[in-house]
């Protein structure tokens, strides 16, 4: 048995594919690659895959992690990567792949925050946007209701900034949100709090931040982009 950790991007049209369906994409891709997926025991054996840090529907990501258990001992990570490349659908790009110890904790237990880059499709004057962001940052608390439960969004926002790129026609918002168990901020909630329509923005998760650096094992393979 081997445990392989894959860092990848989920892009383009795949932002309309849910967390659960992405699991299916990986299962099928691994089977197309003829990689020997390990299965759970029991009456309904399931392939052993673990996607870390669920991504909401509609969000693209440049920092996704999936752990894959393979029923074999000899395959090298280079070979695994090679077999997988052709079998992946458009919209998934592998950045890095490494073998990690079988007892390595799940990234879900180590993640503390996530960074986002949001491209706004509504065109608000920059000054107005700046005003709203300042107001949001200076608020003591921002009480919001999600799934009929009230919570305070403000402490979940660790950083927020508007991009001051020379090209004013595209407005970008950068966020760093808490992503601890039980304290996970949602980018679409921040947009709503700013009075923006979250369904007409392109939200991308650019980076996951961990309390200690994730194990990379000995056999890391990094793609040169």
């Amino acid at each position, binding site marked *: 048995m081997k445990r392989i950790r894959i860092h990848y991007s989920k892009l*383009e*049209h*795949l932002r*309309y*594919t*849910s967390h659960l*369906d992405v699991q*299916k*994409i990986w*299962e*099928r*891709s*691994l*089977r*197309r690659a*003829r990689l020997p997926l390990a*299965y759970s025991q029991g009456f309904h*054996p399931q392939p052993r895959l673990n996607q870390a840090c669920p991504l909401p*529907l*509609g969000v693209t990501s440049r920092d996704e992690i999936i752990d894959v258990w393979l029923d074999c001992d000899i395959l090298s990570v280079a070979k695994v990567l090679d077999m997988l490349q052709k*079998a992946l*659908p*458009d*919209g998934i790009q592998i950045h890095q792949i490494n073998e990690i110890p079988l007892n390595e904790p799940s990234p879900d237990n180590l993640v503390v925050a996530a960074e986002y880059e949001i491209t706004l*499709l509504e065109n608000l004057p920059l000054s107005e946007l700046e005003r709203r962001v300042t107001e949001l940052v200076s608020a003591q608390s921002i009480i919001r209701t999600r799934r009929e439960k009230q919570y305070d969004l403000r402490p979940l926002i660790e950083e927020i900034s508007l991009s001051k790129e020379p090209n004013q026609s595209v407005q970008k918002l950068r966020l760093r949100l808490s992503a601890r168990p039980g304290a996970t901020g949602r980018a679409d909630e921040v947009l709503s709090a700013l009075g923006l329509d*979250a*369904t*007409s923005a*392109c939200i991308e998760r650019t980076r996951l931040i961990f309390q200690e650096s994730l194990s990379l094992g000995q056999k890391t393979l990094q793609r040169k982009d």
Partner: protein
Amino acid sequence: MLPANEIQTRLERVLLKVQKPGRYVGGEYNQIIKPWESVRTRVALVFPDIYDLGLPNLGLAILYNELNQRPDVLAERAYAPWLDMETMMRQHGIPLYSLESKHALADFDIVGFSLPYENLYTNTLNLLDLANIPLFSSERNETHPLIIAGGHATYNPEPMADFIDVFVIGEGEEVIHEIVDTYQSWKSNGGARADLLIALSQLDGLYVPTLYEPEYKEDGTIARIKKLNDTAPLPVRKRILGRLPEPTWRFLVPNIDVVHNRVAIEIMRGCTRGCRFCHAGIITRPVRERPPEQIINTIRKALEYTGYEEVALLSLSSSDYSHILELVNRISKELTDYPNLSISLPSLRIETVSLDILEKLRGSKSGGFTLAPEAATDRMRNIINKPISTEQLLETTDAIYRRGWTTVKLYFMIGHPSETLEDVMAIADVCKTVLAQGRKIMGRRAALHVGISTFVPKAHTPFQWTACDNPEVIESKQRLLKRELKGPNLKLNWTDPQETLMEAWLSRGDRRMGRVVFEAWKRGAKFDAWHDQFNFDAWQEAFQSCGLDQNFYTHRLRTLDEIFPWDHISIGVRKSYLLQEYQRSQRSLLREDCRNQCYACGILPEFNQLRRLYPGDHWKCPEVTSPISG
């Protein structure tokens, strides 16, 4: 039309506002995208229901691959957007577009609709409208795409004749290429649209409705079908293949969950059983089988190209496939490198051998075992020509429970010609006996699911002359079953009588029905196949506004010499043979499986030449010197 990049931009602003946006973006594994300008001809293939149902459709998958194999052609897909997405599209001015390149459908050369059942007619109109393509073929010109349609619901093309330029009657694998070739040479010659239609009408299997005109008698029946062009063939003969081509193995793998996430392989086309209610069984004759070797190779290749773990081996009657035992033996011996593979084999005969077959496939027994006896009395079974004795049925269901399946699923049909309440009561009785068997074997774990559909007389079948059972009678039969069949672990399903009526008037509709379809659509009818969307009132009003009587189509017993609106479409089976079968049914006479003995349905003489071109034993009509008649 709106350019593709503008459609893409507008889509991004609406997709997160609708349910399951993954339906509307394409990008599936095995999708084929070619540069728009790199080809001579662009074809859009449309399934007029939602993505979830359309993506797994085998017919469109076959045509998609056939067309995309050509370097000079690109084929892309479109499906019906669900109501929420349709509203968004209309609000934001997004026309119906193809999933691959996001081009408006109106920018394609050819738009082809798959019409497997009648309750997709209104959706077809709705999609043309959403594509900004004029609905009536008479309103379209050289600037519009050619609109074609095929599938089982086009063997009586008349209800859709006003909207479709060309119908493909029969099997599409070969003729689709001829359509493209004809289109290309017409386009390079720069002719009028009428020239294209006339050229297409010369191809075997194509029906161009504008070249024909029905004349009616005073009583509303057809007096004759008139040709409006000398060169138009009469009758139009369906197209078949002499030998089934290599099956499709390059299936699209969706990025969201759809109804069937599986590889589908047709092991055989056609059926020799001759059940008299069965539309598919008659129109798909003759039987042609695929060799087991080819099926096994296709399974391997398809699994490799898709990553699926489920394979469906399709046919109208799996047990009749000559190599069925060889096939399942080889699957269980040779495909061992796929440990979680599940293979489904629908339509097995009611006999214990069927259990052996499914056990060899190592499938899960949790899904239940399905049988379709259709009727429960010998009298009814003789009338519909599906003779399975109650003893044989009970022997099979007993064995199913004994061998560890906890659920038996039985399909029956009510409303057969001359059916009485006693015949329906017999269905309830046999179901109770089956469940009692199961309880005796495995106690309270035993379950029974009963599906009760309602018979609809279909064009081109021996029952095309009969009247539908009255809706009140159907309701009383359903009441009886609901009263008799209840209790723990007994599940009963039935069809809404109003939906059955709609299917009935569309199935045997004439060309005047097109107006009704249009008026119903205008009044909001769409997604007629969806129980919660079906709008009976819209259809009632549509009939009224057209001055037509539903009963004329549904509850009228046809005289034996009536000319039917579909008589100019030849399916190879002679009308005289269907009539003979109708009359035999009235005398309770059975017709045996014609695999061993030819009863001269007409297929053989009609396609004799084709059969000679493709010799071999894949074509399952027996060799005949002199057929027995009577």
